[in-house]
Structures are given as C-alpha cells and as structure tokens.
C-alpha cells in the first residue's frame, strides 16, 4: 500500500511540490508562446481563470467537463496500478454512450430512481465489455494492450457515426431521438449544465480509494503492478488481475459516456467527446495515480479547457495556442514525473 503516508518530506515533494512546479512551469513557458503570438499572457491567463471559475455558470461548465475527465482518468488509473496501460478510454466512453441511448430509447420510460441506475449499470457493463477485449488479449496472449486499446477506440466512434447518420437517425440532423426526461441526470446548479454525473465521478474515486486502501483486491492490483513475477510467486493470479483492472477501468469510462448522454447531450450525436479520455490519462498522471489526486487534476484540466475557450474569446489568443499550452502542461507533468524518479522521491 502506498497511498496513505503523507508526512515525510520526500512524499510531500513527490506528491505536491513537483506537480505544482510542473504546472507553474508549463504556464510560464505558455506565457512566452502567447507573447510570441502577440497577445498579453496575463490577460490570457486571467481569461482562463475568469472563464473557468469567474461565475457560477463558468464553474458549472468546468464541473461539466471535470466529470468525463475524472471518470476516464480513473479508467486509466485503475489499470495502470496493475501496469496495464488502457488508452482505450475514448472507445469505452462511446460504448457506454451508445448502450445507454439504445437502452433508454428501447425501454418504456421508467421512474428516474429506477431508470438512471439501470442506465448506469448498462453503461458500466458496455464500457467494461469493450475493455475486456484488450484485457483478455493481454492476459492470454500477451498482446500489447496499448496498441489494441488505442485501435479499439475507433470502432465505437465510427459506430456512433453510423447510428446517427443512418440506423438511429431522427429528423433532418445526424442525431438520435432524445432520451426520456426520466433518464436525464438531475442538474444540481439551477440554470446551468452542472449535472449529477460529477457526484458519480467523485463517488467512483472514493470507491477506488477504499479498494486500494482497504481491500485485498486493491492490494493484489498494486502488487501485480509493482512486480508481476513476485505477485505470481505469492499466489496472485496476475492474469485475472490484468483483466479485472482493465474491465473496472472500462466500466468507469462507460460511466463517463452515461454522464455525457444523460447529463449533457440527452441524445447520441457525433463528437460527444472531444478526446476527454486523453485528458483523463494526463489527469491521472498529474494526480500521481491517486484517485483523490485525480479529482483535483481533472478539475485543473477541465478548468484549462473551459478557460481556453474564454482565452480565445477574451484575449484573442488563437485556439491552437490553447491546445499548445495544454500540450506543454502534459510535457511538464511527464517531465516532473521523470524528475521525481531521478531524484529518488518515489
């Protein structure tokens, strides 16, 4: 177990100082880039802050984006604890979304208290099933899960295109019919888009925290990740652990799909995720692969995305520079990770 001790200086450096310095450094380099493009970096960054946290609506928009980033971050995190690198969160998110829409439009409308848990279960299972494929290939045939999970992203995205353009299209636009009202997640800040999916994300992070802190399964996942050979010698069935960890992760990404459909879009259409799962990977890394740290880092990335739109509007910085800053942030985070290891802080 490596999650709890927080009082040594080394751990403090590793867990807090390095990520904070990484983020600040990224913003510093980003400022130079913004200056080069002829804009004012302070206005740009002020736009990011006001655009993501400047009002109740902006905060709610940040929270809306936090949800899928957090859930897909947890998707990556849980598998990476076992040293399984699931980069297929995007496809698993879409599978969850597709399954939820098909179910919601097929079943007769049920009361929300029944309907939403059913849809969450369906979404979780759909994501987990899609993650099972790279998992079983890894466990049984030692096929590199990075490659298979990345390639499996494309199928659900293209399946979505097919469904909205043809099989499930409703009306003149490429989209399905709207799900029943009782399938919609409640909005928890009135007049905004902030929906209860965030609570699902936070609850998932807490459950994972408990799993890794208090359960045998959590111990076995971490032990497998630390040293699969030693774990096998200790009687842990590492293949099962590979499979379980990636499937739990896939299920969480499926829940992200549920959140996007039942909380934001209310129907299936192309482009419901602009690559949330890739932000999720970065969030898990920045969160030091800790479920609670991932909540904070997801919030940061969501604020950055929401704020980047405002930066474009408020400071006249081209959107490509917003992406550039996000990229610099990811590089600095990874650099901080390497530095941490080199300095022997973990």
């Amino acid at each position, binding site marked *: 177990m490596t999650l709890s001790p927080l009082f040594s200086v080394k751990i403090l450096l590793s867990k807090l100082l390095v990520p904070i310095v990484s983020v600040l450094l990224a913003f*510093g380099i980003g400022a130079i880039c913004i200056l080069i493009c002829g804009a004012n970096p302070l206005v740009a960054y002020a736009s990011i802050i006001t655009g993501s946290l400047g009002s109740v609506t902006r905060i709610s*928009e940040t929270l809306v984006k936090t949800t899928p980033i957090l859930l897909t971050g947890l998707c990556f995190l849980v598998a990476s604890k076992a040293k399984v690198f699931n980069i297929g969160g995007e496809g698993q998110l879409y599978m969850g979304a597709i399954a939820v829409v098909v179910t919601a439009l097929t079943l007769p409308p049920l009361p929300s208290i029944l309907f939403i848990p059913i849809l969450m279960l369906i979404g979780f299972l759909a994501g987990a099933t899609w993650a099972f494929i790279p998992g079983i290939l890894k466990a049984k045939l030692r096929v590199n899960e990075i490659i298979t999970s990345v390639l499996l992203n494309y199928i659900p995205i293209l399946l979505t*295109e097919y469904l909205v353009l043809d099989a499930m299209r409703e009306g*003149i636009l490429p989209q399905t019919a709207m799900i029943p009202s009782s399938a919609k997640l409640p909005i928890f800040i009135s007049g905004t888009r902030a929906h209860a999916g965030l609570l699902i994300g936070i609850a998932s992070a807490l459950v994972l925290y408990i799993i890794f802190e208090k359960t045998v399964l959590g111990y076995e996942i971490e032990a497998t990740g630390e040293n699969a050979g030693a774990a096998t010698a200790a009687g842990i069935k590492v293949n099962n652990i590979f499979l379980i960890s990636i499937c739990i992760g896939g299920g969480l990404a499926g829940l992200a799909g549920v959140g996007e459909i039942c909380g934001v879009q209310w129907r299936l*259409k192309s482009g419901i995720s602009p690559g949330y799962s890739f932000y999720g990977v970065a969030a898990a890394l920045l969160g030091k692969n800790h479920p609670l740290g991932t909540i904070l880092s997801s919030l940061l990335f969501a604020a950055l995305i929401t704020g980047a739109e405002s930066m474009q509007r408020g400071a006249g910085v081209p*959107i490509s520079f917003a992406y550039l800053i996000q990229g610099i942030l990811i590089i600095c985070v990874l650099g901080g990770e390497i530095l941490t290891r080199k300095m022997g802080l973990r």
Partner: protein
Amino acid sequence: MFLLFLDNGEIKMASTKTWALLAIVLVVIIVVGAVVYYVTLPVEPETEKTKVACLLPGSINDHGWNQAWFTALQVAETELGVETAYSEAVTVADAGGVFIDYAQRGFDLIWCLDFGMSDAAIAAAEDYPESTFAVPWYGVHGEPPKENIVGYVQGEGPTPGKGIQDASYLAGILAAGLTESGIIGVYGAMPAIPVVAFMEGFKIGAKTYAEENSMALKCLQQFVGAWEDVSAGYETTVSFIDAGADLIYCIGDGISFGGIMAAKAEGGVYVIGGAGDQRPIDPEIIVASIDYDIPKEMLIMTEAVMNGTAAEWGSTSKWVEVGGNFLIDWDEVSDIVSSDLRTRIEDAQEDLLDGTIEVPFITEITPPLDYTP
C-alpha cells in the same frame, strides 16, 4: 536528467536537484514578473456597442465555411460598427458552455454555425432571452417559433433561383462540360437535408448537360461523415480518382480542403469549390467556386438586432436567406472553361433567376448518376 556546465575548465553535469532548483527559480521569476506586469496593465473601458459572435466548427483560415463567416464578422464590424467575437473549432461537447458564455457577456446576436450545436443553442436561448440566436434551418421543418431564435437557410423555396440546389445545378453543368473521362464525383459531409439538396442539384445539372450532348456520364457520390476531417476528404477524392473521376465537387469545411489537396497530389483532376471562393487556394486545380454571400446574411440579421426587429423574425419563423450572388462568380472561373460552356452556364443561370427552369429541392439521396444516351 543532467545539465552541462564548466568546472575548472572541465565539462561536468549538474544533478537533477539542480534542475529542480532551476525550475523553481524560473517559476518564481515568472510569477514575480507576472505580478509586476499585471499591476501596470491599462484597463480598457466597457463599450455599449451591439455585440455579435460566431461559434465556428472549424478554423477561420479554411478557405470555406468558417473563413466565410469570419469575413462576414469583419464586414459587420466595419460597416455597422458592431463589436464582434468568434470561437474557432468549437466541438459539440463544448458548444453549450460557449453559448452560455457569450449570452452572459451580453452578446446580442450569437450565430450557431454547425448543425450539431443546434440543441445547445436552443437550450441557451431558453435561458437567455436577451440574446438572439441564429440557428441553422430552425423553423424550416416545423420547429416552434421562438422570440429569440432565428433560422437561417441556404436556399430552398424562399429564394427561387438562388437555392443551394440551383448553384449546384450550374456546377453540375460545368462538371459535365469539363470531364474527359465521363466520370465525375460529388461528396458531402453527411446526409443532412441541405447537403443532399446540394448533391442532387449537382447530379441534375450534370445529367441535363449529358442529355443535351448525348454523352455517357457517371457521377460517383459519397457522404464522408465529417465536416472538418481533412484526411477523410483526401481519401474520398483519391478513391474517386482511382475510379476514373477527373472532376470533383465537394461541400464541407476541412473535407473540401482535403479534396483539393488530393486533386493536386494526384494530378489531372479539377475541383469545383463550395462554401466560399476557394480558387485562391489553388487556381490551377479549382476551376470555379460556389460563393455564398454570407456577409449579406450577417448584415441583414445584425441590422435586425440593432433595430430591435429580430424578435419579429423569430416569432414568425422567417428565415434569413443566403442572398445575393449565390451562383458562380464568373470573375473567378478558370480559363479552361470554353466560351461555349460558359455561355451554356450563363444561360442556365438566367433561366434559374427568371424562373424558366426550376431545380427540385430533393431531400433524400438518390442512386449515383449513371447516364447512357
């Protein structure tokens, strides 16, 4: 991770701790510099101008739909003195927040420029009645009138002779007149009604010319499935060229650009551009463009907002039409078009405008054209 430095004339490497120290020092310098810079920043006064914003699905330099709207914003700024803003590459997932943001910042007219964002615009319009939202094709198919939602369309009914199908009809004649292989191709983003009408208009024009000249003609067709995917447009065009097509007509944003790139790379193939004058991209490849008069559309609606008459448009489901010169701009047509073909198209254009011929507005895609005299 190491840093090189000199120690008594000898090159040595700094430890990772030095790197960490350097990073912290750099951060401190940046933070202090930022604070000093910020306190000396001049404050810009608030303006009372009418504010107009566009949510663009793609980039403002795509030589197509997005660039045309960016240009229209600039025209509105110059001619009407309004304050403008735009957001590029807005995704379906992000659109809701962007609409709300503009509405909260007091923008009077907010253009939704992608079908996929329509739901988000309509939802925002509900919560922000002070802002007017221009939504593509809203009201055309029976959507309930709303005070602050205005539909805008390209063609169909309201402007005979200037509809999307009419411009494509002329493009079809041009394509059939230019092809040497007897095979042409047309592709659009997805089977949304305007895209279908555009493709069908093209096929009708091509078939008309083929019948008049007793020539065999095939028209390949495809939906690419995306508006902005440059590589998808490229691949579709290559597949058309592999099937023998030597003239391609495409509508879309990035997909159109991809088609032009493929035609250039493959050689011996011409392109008819859409959604704005695309000839400057490559005048040797692009023989003509279907040019929307988007600035006119922008000016009509912005003036309505400034005069306080926008609500009338919304409450009656009237549509702002892409008016003006919606047909081929002859100043920008390639020299390879013969005078006979040019005359034929000019005649057709006149017939369209005076109502002598009427191109049907087809909303369901028909099989690919395969005409044998």
